[in-house]
């Protein structure tokens, strides 16, 4: 049985670990932590052997239905699960319904099911389809089918209620199939908390989900663009108070460093790593400081001088499929833009001096700038390596700060304005 060891709770922040989980009994998932973001089951741009060159890769991997659902008949015939199929069987696998790096299209869910968008277009998933996929994939954890289409500003109260009702209904149906399934004996189902920005609905969703035998909770519909920061904070606090302490809480598409720290303070345990992927896609590198050892002078000099109000700059954060210009406009103050010719064409320093990742140990800003200018694939490989390394290090720093009682200092360091 899965064990949640909560070693400390400091001002709402939870720190601890999960053991004996799913099909990977020997794995330990430390929280607050993040899951490795994947596309089609592989880390973006990184083959397994290149991924091995990073020394901080999380034990847990997030796979997503939009990028994998089309393969489900093949994986069923394969008979050895999605981990083996994608070459990631060494990892703990969590399967989410949507892709946190892509803003889901609105208006395509229906009473009996949910739509996800694969490379070949719309895939309609009713409960039976969804459970057939999980039986073929056999992940350690999976997010229950859910209707989280409440993020757009004009969502009515009625629509929000419907999303809660549908999601609870999906959960009951999925649980019934799950409990009878031999294939899913080693898998655990996570309930999904919906309710948009309505406190009442959030609480109803949380209380009802708690009554069901779920292994943990997914906090859905809290994306950056869905609501104001204050609203999110208040809703998260209220919801997490209702949830039992001994079960993990995962949030999706809340992965910018300052947002992560706020969510940790509310009691969230797990995050996705779609943020470093999005940073990579726009040709940028994460350089924000999170430890005294990292060279904050370098950070100050290189980080993008963003507008002061960071909530404003990320409202379109989730569009990762936009044009290059769109991507550039989404830059945050946590990254440096290696496309910048004036700054980096002849800058032979590493991306982040002092960083121990493969990219920084072996290559220069000028080289990566050159690779970006010429559209070479290696640019994304190197940036993805650095950005993952930096982001995973950030989570290690969060855990360490909670053990040491220095979380507030960390928060100040991360959220400080660039000079």
């Amino acid at each position, binding site marked *: 049985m899965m064990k949640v060891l909560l070693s400390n709770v400091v001002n709402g922040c939870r720190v601890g670990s999960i053991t004996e989980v799913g099909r990977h009994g020997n794995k330990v998932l430390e929280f607050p932590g993040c899951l490795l973001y994947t596309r089609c089951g592989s880390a*973006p*741009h990184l*083959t397994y052997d290149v991924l091995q060159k990073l020394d901080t890769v999380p034990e847990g991997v997030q796979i997503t239905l939009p990028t994998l659902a089309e393969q489900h008949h093949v994986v069923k015939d394969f008979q050895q699960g999605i981990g083996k199929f994608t*070459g990631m069987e060494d990892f703990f696998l969590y399967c989410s319904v949507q892709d946190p790096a892509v803003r889901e299209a609105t208006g395509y869910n229906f009473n009996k099911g949910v739509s996800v968008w694969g*490379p070949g277009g719309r895939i309609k998933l009713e409960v039976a389809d969804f459970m057939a996929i999980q039986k073929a994939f056999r992940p350690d954890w999976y997010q229950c089918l859910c209707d989280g289409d409440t993020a757009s500003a004009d969502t009515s109260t009625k629509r929000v209620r419907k999303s809660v009702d549908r999601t609870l209904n999906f959960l009951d149906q999925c649980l019934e199939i799950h409990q009878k399934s031999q294939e899913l004996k080693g898998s655990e189902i996570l309930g999904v908390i919906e309710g948009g920005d309505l406190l009442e609905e959030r609480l109803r969703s949380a209380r009802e989900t708690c009554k069901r035998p779920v292994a943990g909770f997914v906090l859905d519909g809290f994306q950056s663009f869905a609501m104001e920061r204050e609203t999110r904070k208040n809703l998260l606090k209220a919801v997490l108070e209702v949830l039992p302490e001994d079960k993990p809480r995962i949030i999706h598409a809340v992965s910018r460093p300052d947002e992560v720290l706020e969510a940790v303070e509310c009691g969230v345990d797990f995050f996705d790593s779609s943020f470093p992927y999005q940073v990579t896609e726009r040709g940028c590198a994460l350089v924000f400081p999170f430890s005294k050892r990292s060279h904050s002078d370098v950070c100050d000099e290189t980080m993008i001088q963003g507008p002061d109000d960071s909530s404003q700059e990320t409202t379109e954060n989730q569009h990762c499929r936009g044009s290059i210009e769109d991507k550039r406009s989404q830059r945050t103050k946590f990254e440096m833009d290696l496309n910048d010719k004036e700054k980096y064409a002849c800058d032979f320093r590493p991306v982040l001096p002092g960083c121990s990742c493969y990219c920084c140990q072996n290559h220069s800003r000028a080289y990566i700038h*050159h690779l970006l*200018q*010429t559209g070479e694939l290696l640019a994304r490989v*190197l940036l993805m390596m650095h950005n993952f390394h930096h982001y995973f290090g950030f989570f290690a720093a969060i855990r360490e700060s909670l053990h040491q009682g220095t979380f507030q200092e960390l928060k100040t360091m991360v959220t400080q304005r660039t000079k």
Partner: protein
Amino acid sequence: MAVKHALSLKILAECPTTKARVCKLVLPHHTVDTPVFMPVGTQGTLKGMLPAQLEELDCQIILTRIRLNNYGPELLDKADGLHNFMNWKRALLTDSGGFQMVSLLKLAEITEEGVKFQSPHDGREMLLTPEHSMAIQNSIGSDIMMQLDDVVHSTTKGPRVEEAMYRSIRWLDRCMKAHKRTDCQNLFGIVQGGLDPELRKICVQEMTKRDLPGFAIGGLSGGEEKAHFWRMVHLSTDYLPRNKPRYLMGVGYAVDLVVCSALGCDMYDCVFPTRTARFGSALVPTGQLQLKNKQYARDFRPIDDNCSCSTCSRYTRAYLHSIATQETVACHLVTVHNIAYQMNLMRTLRQSILEGRFPQFVQDFMDTMYPSRNYPVWVVEALAAVNINLQKAQPQPDAPLENIANTCS
């Protein structure tokens, strides 16, 4: 007294039957085992591969094409050469830039001074001279640099071929004069002469009068008939000095590598293995697998059961089918495999020469590639010219392999 070159060639073994040989080619940055296949990179990178991956794949030397607009000599001087800029510690070979001018740019015009072309960048007219090419390659700091030559399409006939051959000799002299770093970089001459045996002979005899560290056979592998191709290679290696490396440009199909090694070539380059990888095409001993094809959707075997590359030890054809041409990871995985295939082919080829069983290696290789023993005529003829008679092959049952027949155009 001969000039001291920045390389040495030690012949380890020569096949008693054919002209094949195994050498240690000691270059400033690395020692290379020949016959060697050199993967081709552009823009100071090899198609998404980390330098560490190339080392793990046992690549000892890579070729990098120079593009005139992107990294100027100033940047490379500041970066202290291309080795440093791309962090590649082993050997590098650079081309002169001339071939690309001619093959990629329709508006290139060749005069005695150099190659005049329009910049693909901003449309400005630019002139690439032998001196300019040497200056760039000196800035790059490659272990082997190529002369600027006057390349004509391999199917061209008439006086243009002769003119280009003689001009290439004149340009070679200008390159030798302009080459500033003979102590740490090696300049190779390129034998031209189209498909005319007389011109080839004149060119190779004239060029080998000059004390150069090595020679290339150029102007081939451009769509000419294979019957002409192998005869030009055969003739060139007959006249090239035994104690210097012989580089056959633009060749990379497995069958060609095996035949041309029998004809006495030491070095090869081609974009094919890495380019085809990016389209989801994987190299196997029986030919190629087009991984995008539906037949692989439920094929849970690795690309090649006998391959020990990191792709084959972890991924199935079915998974690669599902991500090919969709995720960049697919490009990387097939690129790793295809480079591993080329490296493994050359390693086993060298081993067979060292162990004195090269003819048997050739026989086995051809029987795997052509299970029905329908060897291409040119292969039979070329090998017969070096005393390997393929028709003596023992009949073997045809295996039902996924052979996309290697057409060897």
